[in-house]
């Protein structure tokens, strides 16, 4: 059986008069439309959507789904994104009518169970962060960054301080400088050392009274815990600035160390990574932020508060920055994250990080003699290997390795990021994979080394398509089907 059935587009399936969903007849008096709405507001015809039958619709999307790799079908050793198993109980429980069929603006009296859950989630995320207050509103990590930077701007404005710059290590995610720009700051890049840590001298040379925030990812994108962190946060604080943690890599340190305890003033979580809301082929995420007490007044509204036994949404926050989206937040993902944390408990959370780090180090030790790891023999939850020797000796690139892995049924690792490592292959196995899976993956990586270079340049060979022409896609963009 091959996976090439229904390669046509949804629009090719359309036949005039076909229907899938049918509506009931109206049970109210049928007044002419023109009595209800002005003719000038009405369209001549409804939008030219496709007309398809139910079985065609289902076959189309079920067949299409088989052209995806996914956690449920493949191992994803994908650095920087923590692609762990998504427990099925979360899907069931988050779709209970008492969770999914809740209107965001219904009265507090009518959603005490929901508010209790969200209140508990605020507290739990504060405890894991070692910080005082939490906003669950941001829809994703990048929006969490923006929210926190807006909070920082409001904090300094309130103190009458004019600080214009945000310092960001050159190894940081691109969202960091992009968020800084929207929040009205100038992004200033800080060098990394050859070991991938913050270059303290460069940081000192750029740190001054204009600095509002230093953003750090720790463990960083190379999978290293920056052991200078206490010195760094002290330095930043001496200059009256704030430390922000990009929490993308929290999977390495749950219950082991807390950002608030190493000097961080504010941070975001990626609930869809660390706490396994599924990735959904690119979203939804959820990016709550945690902050220190002095920043709490500026958090977006509302927060959940408890008055005795009663929970309520607190909108009365006069110093708040406002809101970054409509309604409370990506609650469906927060419910999944809550279920996950409640399943694990304190010991389970720590076990996550211990085994995420164990798995990454094990994989590192199995492949480092072929795919050298410039940053050394130890890592946290992920490591960045390099294909530079393969490139030099056999003309095999990191991209070739990544694409060939697809043939073996593995999702490709992140490649060519971070930029500080040539021919980078960024690998994060997560804690939910077994030793057998890691061994089989390591064996495959080693086997690829010995394969024919030309064959690797043409990989993948067994998927539904070969390498796409991305230059053509960007040069002559076709962004929609046209009849």
């Amino acid at each position, binding site marked *: 059986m091959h996976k090439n059935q229904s390669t046509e587009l*949804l629009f090719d399936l359309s036949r005039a008069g076909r*229907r899938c*969903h049918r*509506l009931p007849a109206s049970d109210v008096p049928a007044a002419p439309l023109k009595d209800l709405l002005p003719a*000038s507001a*009405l*369209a001549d015809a409804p*939008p030219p*959507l496709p007309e398809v039958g139910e079985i065609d619709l*289902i076959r189309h999307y079920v067949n*299409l789904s088989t*052209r995806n790799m*996914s956690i449920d079908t493949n191992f994803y050793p994908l650095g920087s994104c923590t692609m762990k198993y998504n427990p099925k*109980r979360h899907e069931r429980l988050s779709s209970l009518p008492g*969770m999914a069929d*809740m*209107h965001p603006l*219904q*009265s507090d009296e009518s959603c*005490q*169970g929901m508010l209790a859950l969200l209140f508990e989630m605020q507290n739990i995320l504060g405890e894991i962060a070692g910080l005082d207050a939490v906003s669950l509103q941001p829809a994703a990590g990048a929006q969490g960054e923006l929210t926190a930077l807006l909070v920082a701007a409001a904090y300094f404005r309130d103190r009458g301080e004019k600080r214009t710059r945000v310092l960001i290590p050159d190894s940081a*995610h691109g969202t960091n400088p992009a968020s800084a720009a*929207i929040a*009205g*700051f100038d992004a200033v890049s800080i060098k990394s050392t050859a070991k991938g840590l913050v270059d303290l001298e460069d940081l000192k040379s750029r740190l001054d009274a204009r600095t509002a925030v230093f953003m750090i990812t720790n463990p960083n994108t190379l999978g290293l815990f920056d052991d200078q962190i206490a010195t760094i946060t002290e330095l930043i604080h001496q200059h009256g600035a704030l430390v922000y943690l990009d929490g993308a890599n929290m999977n390495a340190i749950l*219950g*082991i160390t807390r950002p608030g305890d190493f000097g961080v003033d504010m941070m975001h979580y990626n609930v869809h990574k660390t706490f396994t809301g599924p*990735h*959904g*082929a*690119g*979203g*939804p*995420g*959820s990016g709550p932020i945690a902050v220190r007490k002095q920043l709490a007044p500026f958090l977006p509204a509302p927060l959940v508060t408890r008055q005795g036994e009663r929970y309520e949404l607190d909108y009365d926050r006069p110093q708040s*920055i406002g809101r970054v989206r409509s*309604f*409370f*937040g990506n*609650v469906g993902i927060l419910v999944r994250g809550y279920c996950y944390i*409640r*399943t694990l*408990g*304190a010991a389970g*959370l720590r*076990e996550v990080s211990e085994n995420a780090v*164990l798995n990454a180090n*094990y994989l590192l030790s199995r492949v480092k003699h072929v795919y050298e790891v410039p940053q050394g023999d130890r890592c*946290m939850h992920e490591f960045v290997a390099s294909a530079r020797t393969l490139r030099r000796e056999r003309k095999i690139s990191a991209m070739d390795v990544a694409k060939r892995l697809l043939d073996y049924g593995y999702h490709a690792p992140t490649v060519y990021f971070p930029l500080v490592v040539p021919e980078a292959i960024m690998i994060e196995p997560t804690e939910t*994979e077994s*030793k057998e899976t890691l061994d089989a993956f390591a064996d495959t990586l080693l086997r690829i080394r010995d394969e024919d270079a030309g064959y690797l340049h043409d990989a993948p060979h067994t998927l*539904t398509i070969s*390498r796409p*022409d991305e230059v053509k896609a*960007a040069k002559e*963009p*076709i*962004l*929609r*089907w046209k009849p």
Partner: protein
Amino acid sequence: MSYVLNTPADQQAMLKQIGVASVDELFRSIPDALRLKRPLAVPPALGEIELTQHLGDLSGRNQSAADAVCFLGGGSYDHFIPAVVDAVAGRSEYYTAYTPYQAEASQGSLQAFFEYQTLICQLTGLDVANASLYDGGSAVAESILMALSVSPKRHKVVVAGSVHPEYRHSLTTYAANLEVQIATLPTPQGFLDPDDLKAAVDDQTLAVVVQHPNFFGGLEEVEALGALAKAKGALFIVSFDPISLGLLKRPGQYGADIAVAEGQCLGNPMSYGGPYLGILACKEEFVRKMPGRLVGQTTDRNGKRCWVLTLQTREQHIRREKATSNICTNQGLMALKATVYLAALGPQGLKETAELCLRKAHYLADKLQAAGLPLRFQRPFFKEFAVKAAQPLHLLSQLLGKGYHAGLPLGRWYPELADCFTVAVTEKRTRAEMDGLATAAAAALRER
């Protein structure tokens, strides 16, 4: 319990291979002084049975739309979700997949997003749509960031007061530290009077933002407003209700430059506010200023048609601080649901859904009027309308006691409308439910 598979024997074998004696040694880079020396203070672990009971208890303390008939709107609606939507979105090949950067391993999602972009173009009558933003509120904010990069010399934004208050609030929050002045025009008659807009736009105006149908459910004079914006060279940005486009003219037909929307109504549960779907579509000429991911068609090495993420030089992972937006993770799964929803309805289904909403809303408005709740505005409306009532909070609380989420009190956002609430009606509401609400409202008002 965690989902860790390593047995103690596995762990020993792995540590031996690594060359360390204990897991703790792997954490040596974290200075001892920074370590947490106690267990996290989080609630105790629960097995699946206990967790199911716990979530059952919590949801039992909520009155969902399954417990009380939902007439709440304001951007989130109790529309029907056909089973095909959940059947497709429940495929774990979709919901457990990663962002489709590896095109060869993601053709399923990429093609679905390409189809989504096409459906949104068909729906709006505009040329291009992105692969989703977070929600209707941040979509308005993103549309202004986009406008700033289209017309960098203009700095004034004019927003109708009848735009969803939380969308306006999202915009002012995003723009707090940018060079933008936002003027909100009052809408005392429940819509933006074109004469008021005329007085407010000039050749420094970056964009005019309206919502149609607006937050009170009423129609705006979109053609006149668009012409006024255009006359001054300002972009015309419209926040629309996707369901309304089964009947109403499409944004592309009345001159919108950028159209944004909350796409929750397209197959997504209300879920207490998220995850939702931010829709953004625009004219072709602005494509390189768009925020967020775009899927494009191309060919592979064998000339076979396929799909990739494209025009990525707009995005944060390439352009960093010069990116058109900071968005990375979007709402892919919600876009997939919207795709299946729109395909399941088709043109006729969307039209019938819109007609049912329209007719039922007007039926209920008449009934409530007869019950003593007069319409607040004399405007044509689609599926939502504002009524006037003394002490609306008390009345709404009484009606909840009778089994109705009857409406949204407006006082939180509009102090001058503290004696009003809005009522929304979807195709799911039956005549019996509406008669029941009207009877309960009349009884509650009589008891006063």
